């Protein structure tokens, strides 16, 4: 009996996928932490919080500010403000919650960010990072027509671009995968590949990004995976869970891998709040609030095999 055409096509497709899987280089995704202890393990993680330095849009020249602000000398009218912050273990997951308010006089300034995260340092050769992420609450108040944005994010540095003969020229390339809420565009999943503009990474430029077709659901666990494929000069982003089919998207890059080891070997779980900047010099308009409350679990890394 001959199989119907559709069934034959499905059979062939499955066979191809099965064979492809057999020839994929063996990779071991090793669990780093499932947060099953009552408290955060300080030998594995360090928690951090800062606000990204405000910068005049013109000086960024298409990039975005990536360094922390000096809170002792910066003008608070021009800065975003972190207020409520919480880091703790809840039900076998780590909970990160942050409320950040926008600048009072934000005209002409690039949008500032408040960031709260959990960081681990690793050896060079990271190829894959995976974690389960659940957003439990998020608000993104606008200021007039200025939008706000919040993100629950995985971030890792993978390699460096620059002149290998001069280490000071190294510019790290890093990738982020985020569950994002935006005042006007709603809930999106976004993967971004970026490069530090200088050694200290005070400014970053995006090399490429992708918006997923699917969205995410509040209160549901999503498995986020970001993979570096240096042999194909691309990053692959995958999101599954949350009541929608899994989706995988790739972002290629064209910069050379001049340094196999990134200068900064950070792997972060973080929440980021990017409030709208009001133009209210007298403070009559309240600073808009952006909150992100998310839980992270089952963090795993995969290292390149020599």
């Amino acid at each position, binding site marked *: 009996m001959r199989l119907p055409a559709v069934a034959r096509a499905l059979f062939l497709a499955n066979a191809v996928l099965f064979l492809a899987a057999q020839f994929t280089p063996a990779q071991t995704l090793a669990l780093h932490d499932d947060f099953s202890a009552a408290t955060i393990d300080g030998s594995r993680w360090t928690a951090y919080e*800062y606000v990204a330095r405000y910068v005049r849009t013109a000086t960024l020249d298409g990039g975005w500010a990536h360094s922390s602000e000096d809170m002792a000398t910066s003008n608070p009218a021009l800065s975003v403000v972190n207020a409520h912050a919480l880091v*703790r273990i809840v039900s076998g997951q780590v909970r990160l919650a942050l409320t950040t308010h926008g600048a009072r006089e934000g005209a002409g300034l690039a949008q500032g960010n408040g960031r709260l995260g959990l960081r681990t340092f690793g050896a060079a050769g990271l190829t894959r990072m995976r974690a389960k992420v659940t957003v439990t609450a998020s608000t993104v108040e606008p200021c007039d027509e200025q939008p706000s944005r919040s993100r629950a994010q995985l971030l890792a540095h993978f390699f460096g671009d620059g002149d290998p003969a001069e280490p000071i020229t190294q510019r790290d390339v890093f990738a982020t995968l985020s569950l994002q809420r935006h005042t006007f565009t709603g809930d999106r999943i976004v993967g971004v590949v970026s490069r530090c503009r200088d050694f200290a990474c005070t400014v970053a430029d995006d090399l490429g990004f992708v918006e997923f077709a699917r969205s995410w659901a509040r209160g549901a666990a999503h498995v986020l995976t970001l993979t570096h494929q240096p042999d194909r000069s691309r990053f692959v982003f995958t999101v599954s869970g949350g009541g929608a089919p899994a989706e995988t998207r790739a972002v290629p890059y064209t910069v050379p891998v001049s340094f196999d080891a990134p200068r900064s070997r950070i792997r972060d779980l973080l929440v980021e709040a990017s409030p709208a900047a009001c133009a209210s010099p007298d403070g009559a308009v309240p600073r808009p609030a952006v909150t992100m409350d998310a839980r992270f679990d089952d963090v795993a890394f995969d290292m390149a095999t020599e």
Partner: protein
Amino acid sequence: MRRNRLAAGLAALLIVSLLLPVGGPAQTLGRYDDFDGRTIDPARWRGYEETVRGTHARTTPVGQYEDGPEDKSPGAAYSFGARNAERRRQVVSSQLRLALTTWGAPFLFYVGDWRTLPKGRIGVRISDPELADHVPPIHAMAAKLTLTRASVEQARPCPGGDRPSSVIAAGLVGAFFNDGSSRSRTDRTGDVMAALMARVTPDASAAMSVVGTVWRCADRRCRLINRLAEASFARTSALGIPITLAMRWQPDRTRFLFRVSGDDAPAETRALAYSSTISAGPPVGYVYDLRLENRPGACWWYGSTTPQLAVSSEARFDNVRLDGDAVVATE
């Protein structure tokens, strides 16, 4: 030339600790925040957390100590300081609640090489733009403080059996004037700062002491400081008991005045006076903080990359008051 100038400035700021009765003309403080709202008011405060490296005897100039925050931005290659973990910064029952767990830093090796050990902080900093230009200036701060938790957890015993001494502190911090050493709007060199902190050493005792300190920023970002003076109070208290901390810079009398009251004990005052021929200008830093700080102890020797101590603390702040003129300017 510059070094000579700085040295001369530092010498002129020699401070002596004096036991004084409650002194100074009566000056009115106004209410800045009593945390009656449901959340931290971003028009009044901005939250922060920091870790500070230890002071290594061989790499830090004599007389200077690490006090500034490590860079936490993604460009930072590594963290050598203490490691902050769990934290809370929120309004609870009309009080500001600060809670923090800090792990000791890895890579300390011989503790004897370190003048100070790494520490972690969490806090809120006054953020009202109306006071950022120091007109009117903030000369006085006061707040009610309740230190509710101070504990230390040692992951494993020290190899030599010694007992690490951790310190937890909570209280007020402020930058009050610059001694003329600053060269720009962002150069904090010469900023003179003061703090009034309740302190507990949980390894040794649950008793809470109070200490007033004065220091001077030794570089642009105040990463390094010169300690100028310290005054310990005779009174002690205990966890869970509210006390009121107040400190005031009195430029006309070239001194700082620290006062502690509450806990059904007589109020106590200490003064740290300085003789200075330098006319004090406004500070560069806009730093007036409610702060909680953990300094995990360390074994005399260890070569492990695993931190050994986790220190946890929690404090409540309420009824924050400033100079009346400053409060009026923010209304």
